[in-house]
């Protein structure tokens, strides 16, 4: 028997039974939909027909169950409000059940029981519902349900309760642009953007907050560098400093409203940083700095080495007072002898022949006069205190002027002596100079106090030694038998008058003459070399007489 073919979508079953008795062949005509199968059966037609019928009914029942069903339950996936003034909900359909299914969204507000239907199914795309401003209320709960319905039935989704303030998620910021700003020392790139569309950020209805992130794009390498995020507050631009030169950056921005959810990241904006940004600057700066350091070190070294000359050059030393011959080192050592000896240089001390300073006493008495021994006092009174020595001579300050009161003859003699003295050179220059005192024809009287011999003496040479060294004046007699210097023979000293006059006694008593010796010794000689500064030139008049 040929198979029954039963297509699924049959509408009617047409069974036609035809029997043809005359031929004895039972033909069962089975017309199914557009297909009609003629079944010819001889003899067993009735039985087959019954089987076919039951089979057909069974199949129709099964196929109807397979191809048509009520819809499956849809599911609300997400609801979102981009600006807290409108919101949209999306759902996911379940199975359709083979039949065209329609979806409806119904909602109920918090405290009321009235059910409303979605105001706009199309604005937000398929399977969505858009609530515009008129239909959006905030701070109340929406109870939302989606119903799927088809010919065979309906399906309800699970209800969802939402509050608009909880589902706020803005659109991403728009018109993100990046520009590179090349300033002198701190290059940066500036990111700018606009707020997301339709969002009221100015009235205070929402408080918006932005976030920027950047990444270095490496085209060749497989691995990507990480994003770096920066918080940008409410502003619409952001500067990122010190980018790496020669790299490509990608920049993205996103935003958030109040305490809600972050938006999607905006599409990337790219920027290429030029390569030679500040390399030359860096090189120049580095060389300049090193040069400065080197120069500085050199100057420091030079200064430390040549400290003194530089110091003298910059700060010339102030001249200090100095005494020539006075060595401060000697003062410190404390030896006075050396000091004083050092002081006495040939040119020092200068004999400033001030009038009253130099005192030379040359006492020459008249030898003709015979005086008694008793008149010694008289003699003393007469002469020696009157001995004045005047040093005020014209040419040489070493001239000695000797005046005596009692004898005019002596005066002339002495004036001659002074003339002679003036003719001589400086006493100081020739230490051993001997001054000769010439007595021209004059008589010099001397009286020896011990003897009463007076004699007429001839001119005697009076040697005046500058007392620079010896300090005494020698009187040379014309006679050969000159006595040694008084300093060597103190036995001849008979008297000392006024401290620096020694009276000598001549050792030729036989002649009966008194010889006058005018010796000059210095007290310095007697004291054995102790030097008196003022007494460098001392004269001593002696009376030599026979002892």
């Amino acid at each position: 028997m040929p198979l029954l073919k039963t297509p699924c979508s049959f509408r009617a079953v047409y069974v036609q039974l035809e029997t043809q008795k005359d031929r004895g062949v039972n033909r069962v005509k089975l017309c199914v939909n557009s297909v009609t199968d003629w079944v010819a059966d001889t003899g067993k037609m009735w039985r087959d027909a019954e089987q076919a019928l039951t089979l057909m009914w069974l199949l129709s029942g099964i196929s109807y169950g397979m191809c048509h069903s009520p819809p499956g339950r849809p599911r609300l996936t997400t609801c979102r409000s981009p600006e807290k003034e409108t919101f949209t909900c999306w759902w996911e359909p379940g199975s359709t059940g083979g039949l065209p299914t329609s979806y409806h969204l119904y909602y109920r507000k918090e405290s009321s029981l009235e059910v409303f239907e979605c105001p706009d199914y199309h604005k937000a795309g398929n399977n969505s519902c858009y609530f515009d401003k008129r239909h959006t209320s905030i701070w109340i709960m929406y109870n939302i349900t989606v119903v799927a319905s088809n010919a065979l039935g309906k399906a309800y989704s699970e209800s969802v309760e939402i509050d608009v303030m909880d589902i706020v998620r803005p659109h991403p910021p728009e018109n993100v642009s990046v520009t590179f700003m090349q300033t002198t020392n701190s290059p940066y790139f500036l990111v700018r953007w606009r707020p997301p569309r339709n969002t009221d950020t100015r009235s205070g209805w929402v408080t918006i907050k932005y976030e920027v992130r950047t990444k270095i794009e490496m085209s060749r390498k497989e691995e990507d560098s990480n994003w770096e995020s920066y918080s940008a507050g409410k502003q619409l631009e952001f500067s990122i400093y010190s980018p790496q030169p020669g790299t490509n950056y990608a920049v993205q921005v996103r935003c958030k409203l109040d305490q809600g959810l972050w938006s999607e990241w905006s599409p990337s904006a790219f920027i290429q940083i030029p390569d030679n940004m500040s390399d030359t600057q860096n090189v120049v700066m580095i060389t300049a700095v090193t040069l400065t350091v080197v120069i500085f070190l050199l100057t420091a070294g030079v200064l430390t080495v040549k400290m003194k000359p530089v110091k003298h050059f910059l700060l010339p030393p102030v001249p200090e007072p100095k005494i020539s011959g006075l060595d401060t080192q000697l003062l410190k050592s404390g030896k006075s002898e050396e000091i004083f000896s050092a002081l006495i240089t040939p040119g020092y001390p200068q004999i400033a022949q001030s009038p009253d300073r130099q005192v030379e006493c040359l006492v020459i008495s008249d030898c003709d006069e015979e005086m008694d021994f008793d008149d010694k006092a008289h003699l003393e009174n007469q002469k020696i205190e009157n001995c004045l020595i005047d040093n005020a001579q014209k040419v040489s300050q070493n001239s000695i002027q000797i005046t005596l009161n009692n004898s005019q003859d002596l005066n002339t003699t002495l004036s001659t002596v002074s003339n002679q003295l003036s003719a001589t050179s400086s006493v100081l220059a020739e230490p051993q100079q001997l001054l000769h005192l010439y007595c021209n024809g004059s008589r010099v009287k001397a009286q020896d106090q011990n003897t009463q011999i007076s004699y007429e003496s001839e001119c005697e040479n009076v040697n005046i030694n500058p007392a620079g060294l010896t300090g005494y004046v020698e009187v040379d007699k014309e006679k050969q038998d000159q006595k040694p210097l008084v300093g060597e023979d103190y036995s001849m000293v008979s008297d000392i008058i006024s401290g620096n006059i020694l009276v000598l006694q001549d050792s030729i008593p036989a002649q009966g003459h008194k010889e006058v010796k005018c010796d000059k010794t210095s007290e310095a000689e007697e004291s054995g070399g102790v030097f008196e500064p003022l007494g460098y030139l001392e004269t001593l008049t002696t009376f030599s007489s026979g002892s």
Partner: protein
Amino acid sequence: MKKTTVLQVCVAFVLCSPQAVTGSPVDCPDQDTAGTSCTISLEKLLERAVQHAELIYRVSEESKLLFDEMLISFGMNLHVPEGTMCAPKTVPVPMSKSEIQQISDKWILHSVLILAQFWIDPLVDVQTSLENYENAPSALVNRSKWMSSKLMSLEQGILVLSRQILGEGGLALEVPEETPERFVSSSSFETVRRDYSAIYCFRKDAHKMQTFLKLLKCRQIDKENCTFF
């Protein structure tokens, strides 16, 4: 000598001048309702009020999250917002931006004041109740304490604001007679539920307060940008 005297004068100047510099925005606390000599500009007052409200809202958000975590750790799954958890207010609050756009400044201030006054006591209750929990996180307890204190200062600030904007007696303060029902906690579950709903609803109202104040500030300060929403 001269240098030292000059230096002393300069130091004295520097020390004394901040008082003169900061004198212009006089530091008046928001709570100062009796100070007659103390004045603060409207701008600053509004700014402070907005900052207060924003901060309170943020802290309430954090409190709710902390409470959620705590409930998870307790093993409870409270899905609170089943509609009627939040106590209805006596004064209807506008529900959308367009509605808010239409209401007056007086109405805004009125609403905010009512909300602030409503929540002072319940927050104190929540705080005391939280302290009785076994494992309540200290952050949550601290935040609830903080919120109740800040809410009181916000209320004072709103009173000052209303006096400045609306003048004396601008706000007809009707003391809301509704006393929130004191739940006699039958079980710990109920207590937890109550506390959670309090925090949840307070968060919502805090958001309302901050939104109203922000709009009010915009209206008062920057009229051009705010008239067209």
